[in-house]
């Protein structure tokens, strides 16, 4: 584990050296929970992604431990000792929530399904079948509010981003970008290959936690008909 400053008011905790879907995310989640529980004075918020946790803090609210210490050193030492002390907790105890996301692959929503199928040398139905069999994990949330980046895409379905991004992609669009997949959370421009759409709201400010998915969560996709899409969207 390494801790590096990102300017004077943030630092990055590198929990793992390399990304391995299951173990890295579980290690990051365990570290995130330890730091949340510790509620260190002066720490404003925590932002996990892949192998790291961004820690945002107010340097004016962190009292240096010694005359030669900076707030960064003091906070870094504190974080290190919290994570060392919690390293004995069993990471296997982490059981991230599993979300089942209904997706309609109807031609009206699946602009790029044919392209993905062609590149993979598969039929569209086979792409949909393989996409739906895989289990995914949220590696980070960003791009737009509530947009989940997902790992776990079957390698044969990887498709390069479109050369020219679309100016507008509807909220709920399920898409493949390189080796990753994700779900457009709000209407936005984007360059990923859209293969379907979910009626679920990935981002809703009326909810206490506006983003449906969090870093570390597990996701599966379930194919639905056009009719089911309409009834769920209501």
């Amino acid at each position, binding site marked *: 584990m390494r801790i*590096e*400053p*990102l*300017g*004077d*008011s*943030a630092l*990055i905790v590198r929990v793992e050296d390399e*990304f391995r879907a299951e173990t890295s995310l579980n290690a990051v989640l365990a570290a995130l929970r330890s730091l949340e529980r510790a509620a260190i004075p002066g720490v*404003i*918020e*925590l*932002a*996990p*992604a*892949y*192998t*790291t*946790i*961004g820690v*945002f803090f*107010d*340097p*004016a609210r962190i009292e240096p431990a010694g005359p030669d210490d*900076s*707030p*960064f050193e003091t906070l870094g030492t504190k974080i290190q000792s919290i994570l060392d002390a919690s390293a004995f907790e069993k990471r296997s105890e982490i059981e991230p929530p599993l979300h089942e996301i209904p997706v309609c692959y109807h031609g009206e929503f699946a602009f790029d399904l044919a392209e993905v199928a062609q590149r993979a040398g598969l039929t569209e139905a086979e792409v949909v079948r393989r996409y739906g069999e895989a289990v995914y994990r949220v*590696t*980070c*949330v*960003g*791009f*737009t*509010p*509530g*947009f989940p*980046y997902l790992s776990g895409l079957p390698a044969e379905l990887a498709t390069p981003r479109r050369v020219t991004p679309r100016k507008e992609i509807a909220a709920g669009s399920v898409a493949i970008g390189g080796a990753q997949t994700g779900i457009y*959370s*709000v209407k*936005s421009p984007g360059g990923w290959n859209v293969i379907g759409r979910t009626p679920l709201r990935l*981002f809703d*400010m009326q909810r206490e*936690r*506006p*983003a449906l998915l*969090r*870093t570390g969560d597990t996701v599966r996709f379930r194919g639905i008909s056009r009719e089911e899409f309409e009834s769920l969207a209501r």
Partner: protein
Amino acid sequence: MKVSVVSAGFFTSVQDLGRVGFRQSGISVGGALDPHAMRVANALIGNEDNAAGLEATMGNLRLRFEDQRIVAWCGGAFTVRIGRADLPPGHAGLVAQGEELMLSAPKTGSRAWLAISGGIDVPSVLGSRSTDFRGNFGGHQGRTLRDGDTLPLGESSVSPGRVAEMFGDRKIAEWTALSSWITTAQRARFLRVLPAPDWSLFTPEAQAALISQPFTVMLDSDRMGARLDGPDLERADASDLLSEAVAPGTLQVPPNGKPILLLGDCQTVGGYPKIAQVITVDLSIAAQLWPGDQVRFHEISLGEAQFLVREREEDFARFRVGLSLHKS
């Protein structure tokens, strides 16, 4: 209890000090691009630090007030008038019922923050009244202001008797704040930086160029970031990086070698390498950048940068105490 937008100007939005605590949902902090200027303007008129005000980009803003209010502004080199009186930056001014405030286009700089006593009373969304342009929520209907909009104002905490004490027969109060806080566009466009986590991935030439060469702000810059033109910042190692946390002030470098200086509306995570990070107190200068401006970077130490934040907090606390003495 309302203010009418006679002319909304180029790009004006409701902002406070930002939306904190939702990075895990991918929500930017946003808020005033120079949060320090916003809180200084608020402090000058007796508002809480986090009261919502207006961020006016390139000016041309005209407001008409339904009732008597105290206002103050900080930022670029704008001309602001209340009726026919000049309101200099960093001074409280009294706006009478039915009177107009006019904020011209700036001579230098690009943004101004206007505080109004009582604050702009739009609904608080996820703990903030700031406008989020990535999710189109918060602020006034999640968008920039338009001509003819009406904004609700909060109850002004300053009583009429207090107003008489503060202003007497003047329209503009005498007290003010440090000039470096209120006229940020007049400072030299030198941004102090710290090496960021991916500094060592760049060639020695790129590292040297960053801190010795000028960069020019490009046209497609916005509240998310200022795109910079200058020497190509090449990487010694071009491996793909995993996305991780970024922050306002991060200088990230896409494959074309042209750095982007991230500002308040930036994404919460980014996958481009981060060569350097602008120090917190210099975000006030970064928030004034406009296409065509030249900017230079200067490296300092982490210890100095953290000292500067602490020093500014102490100065601001003293400033608040001083203001409360003025008014008593």
